[in-house]
């Protein structure tokens, strides 16, 4: 019988679910994140409560049977939030446990192919965010950026920004998923900003799109200089908008001052 298992959308939640499936020997499970709850026609929905300890047991076993590269792909695929990816990831675990070894690089296998494709999309988005994040100095020593990535990539970019901006405090906020990462010169932590609080209100402005800005004067200046640079570096006789859009799809423009201006 098919059983629908609902988890809380977290990585630990998914792993707990996989643990539960094995524990209760559930035959044909369907795993769903909260966002995709449809009233199920398949059977009774069971809500899985995330238990880090169970999650870690699954993770530990997977780590033993896989290469670090496999596990990175696994995690990236999870972050894609593609509908149904949980089930693919579960099948992947199943194959791994059965074979006693992860099927690394078996691209003739549809599960592997799906995971590698999802991971690739997420990887591309990760690079895009590393490229398109634009910081604004909003207090004397705090750099702030809004973003709305297609996939949930903040967990993947934290270390990049931490290494790069080791000497400045920064916050990167995902407005789509309503959480951010914040670095205080020591560590990166997840934060949620209550935008109703007037002090943090500044965070919600679309920093790229706003002409009349509340930022410090010098912020506008640097943005202007950057926009000027962008303009001057273009070569009109080589213009190729199709190619341009391929690199910078329109949905990213609102956070890129050089595209808004």
């Amino acid at each position, binding site marked *: 019988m098919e059983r629908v298992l609902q988890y809380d959308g977290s990585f630990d939640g998914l792993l707990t679910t996989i643990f539960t499936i094995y524990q209760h020997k559930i035959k044909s499970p369907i795993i769903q994140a909260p966002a995709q709850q449809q009233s199920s026609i398949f059977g009774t929905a069971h809500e899985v409560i995330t238990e880090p300890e169970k999650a870690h047991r699954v993770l530990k076993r997977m780590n033993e049977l896989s290469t670090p590269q496999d596990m990175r792909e696994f995690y990236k695929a999870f972050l894609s939030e593609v509908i149904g990816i949980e089930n693919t990831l579960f099948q992947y675990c199943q194959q791994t446990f059965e074979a006693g070894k992860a*099927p*690394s*690089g*078996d*691209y*003739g*296998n*549809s599960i592997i*192919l799906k995971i590698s494709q999802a991971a690739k999309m997420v990887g591309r988005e990760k*690079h895009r965010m*590393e*490229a*398109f*994040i*634009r*910081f*604004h*100095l909003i207090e004397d020593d705090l*750099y702030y*950026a809004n973003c709305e990535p297609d996939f949930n990539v903040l967990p993947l970019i934290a270390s*990049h920004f931490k*290494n*790069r*901006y*080791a*000497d*400045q405090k920064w916050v990167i906020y995902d407005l789509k998923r309503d959480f951010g990462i914040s670095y205080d*010169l020591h560590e990166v932590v997840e934060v949620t900003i209550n935008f109703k609080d007037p002090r943090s209100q500044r965070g919600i402005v679309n920093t790229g799109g706003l002409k009349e800005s509340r930022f410090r004067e010098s912020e506008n*200046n*640097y943005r*202007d*200089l*950057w926009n*000027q*640079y*962008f*303009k*001057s*570096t*273009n*070569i*009109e*006789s*080589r*213009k*190729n*908008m*199709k*190619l*341009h859009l*391929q*690199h*910078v799809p329109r949905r990213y423009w609102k956070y*890129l001052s*050089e595209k808004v201006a």
Partner: protein
Amino acid sequence: MNYERIKEKLEILADAAKYDVSCSSRGSKRQNKNKGLGDSSGMGICHSYTEDGRCVSLLKILLTNVCIFDCAYCVTRKSNDIKRAGFTVQEVVDLTINFYRRNYIEGLFLSSGIFTSPDATMERLIRVAKKLRLEENFNGYIHLKSIPGASDELMQEAGLYADRLSVNIEIPTKEGLKLLAPDKDHKDFIQPMKAVKNAIDLYKSEKEIIKSTPIYAPAGQSTQMIVGATGESDRDIMYSANFFYNKFQMKRVYYSGYIPVADDSRLPAIGTEVPMMRENRLYQTDWLLRFYGFDVREILNEHHQNLDMDIDPKLSWALRNLDQFPIDINRAEKRMLARIPGVGMKSVGKILSARRYRKLGWDHLKAIGISMNRSKYFITCSSREFESRDLTPIQIKSQILLSGSSKYSKNFTNQLSLF
């Protein structure tokens, strides 16, 4: 800081620097240290793209566009009647740091007109890099343009602060150079390259003995050639490139389709179309040399002096060497897999990995992402049906051109998503 004035300078000095197509910011080994600013140990990131589709990863500017030379192909040439400007060392440092902190750029690409002597110019460029490294604790990427004719000592010093050094050869043949830049000497370009190569070798061998040896130009050196300003063939260009790759261990050679900037009877007239297609084919060839194990003579030689414009150089090579095909996907070694038209290096890796599990057929290859439209004429796999083996090169070519018209239509780039 006087922003209006800086803005004006940026307008002039970014505009003048934009013809240098080098944009790479990868391949360095400089890690963030002492909790300073920046890190360039990664892959290099394009932070934006110009409307012509080129990557913006560095703040690419001239220190000044004042120049005592008069190279015909250059906007900055002495005889050109344009506004001149110059940045102070501190202005460049401030711009770099502030752009970097906002994640606009990966670092700085600094070039300059030769304002008094090559050495005086080079010395000023080094001062910028030195200040960024020593005073600002900046670990982002720095690319300095070496000034032709600068002394070996200055080149030695430049590499201690820069990640990459480049001197643009600009004109691929000696004769062309003599024609268009009569004040310059071929060896003024070669000498700094030699100095950099020697220094790289020296620091590398010292590093093996003494761990604390400073890093020297960790991302190596590169150069650029203008394409289509003089009458050189693709063979001339690629043989020059090959010479630089081998002789000076260049990391990159860039090809820049000539953009007419001067009314000069020695050059294509203003308004002549930029040879983008040709440029693209040269980059594809360059990739075949660097990553696909091709020898330049296989692609360009006495009988084949120019690249085909209608098909990519790998396909062109395959059609001239049909006797080497078909290649068996399930057995061929890596080197041969890489020679199949429509199969990129990533796909080669996937094929090698996937065939450890099972024999691969058409469906697997399609799912892996291979462009069947081109490759199917050149391979066999475990599927039964296969393309007729009796087609002539011309037949194959016309079938490919017919089936994939969009792929070969007018959208071309110099940064690549190839094969």
